[in-house]
């Protein structure tokens, strides 16, 4: 099974500053998808950004961008101009592109809790 590692249990950033959350994964596959999900306190898990492994260009969604290093199996999330509303638990997740027997289940990291200070 693919393993997803988030080495930072907690991170802190000041409002308006930039923070990077790290994620590494272990796989022997060449085709897969990577995701960052955000879970605010007592609220629903929502997708922040996704990356297809076959795409070399790093994904960007407004203030959120990723640094995808396929050879290094690294998928970090950069949050620019941090806002108080960015405070949440962030999960990195991996999904195989071909393992249909798994129903395309996600493998999640253990999460990084992001604190945003005024």
């Amino acid at each position, binding site marked *: *099974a693919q393993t997803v590692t988030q080495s930072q*249990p907690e991170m802190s950033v000041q409002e308006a500053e930039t923070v990077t959350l790290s994620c590494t994964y272990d796989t022997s596959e060449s085709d897969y*998808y990577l*995701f960052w*999900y955000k879970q605010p306190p007592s*609220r*629903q*898990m*929502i*997708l922040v950004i*996704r990356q*297809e492994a076959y795409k070399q260009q790093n994904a960007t969604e407004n203030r959120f961008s990723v640094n995808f290093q396929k050879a290094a199996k690294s998928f970090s999330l950069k949050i620019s101009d941090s806002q108080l509303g960015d405070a949440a638990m962030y*999960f990195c997740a991996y*999904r195989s592109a071909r393992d*249909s*027997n*798994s*129903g*395309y*289940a*996600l493998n*999640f*990291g*253990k*999460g990084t809790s992001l604190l945003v200070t005024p």
Partner: protein
Amino acid sequence: DVKVTQSSRYLVKRTGEKVFLECVQDMDHENMFWYRQDPGLGLRLIYFSYDVKMKEKGDIPEGYSVSREKKERFSLILESASTNQTSMYLCASSPTSGSPYEQYFGPGTRLTVT
């Protein structure tokens, strides 16, 4: 907007009770999932279903069963609840066709077994 709903946000049950957690999605997704979320452990897959009446075990199926009689509904069953099943339970759904296949989550059910 995709909507995944779960029958309860908070649930308190006694040890030995049979517990049903219901999940409904409105986007005609083929795949549905039940995860368990515990602090420091992230999300762990309990069961998933890729079609009506089809189910597959995930990483931690012991003590759980599931039912999918209709495409939009996926139920998680705790046959005899135990205190170590106190946790947050998240349901999710995703399509099979059409990239990028991300999963859509429900709000979660926080189950306490006493």
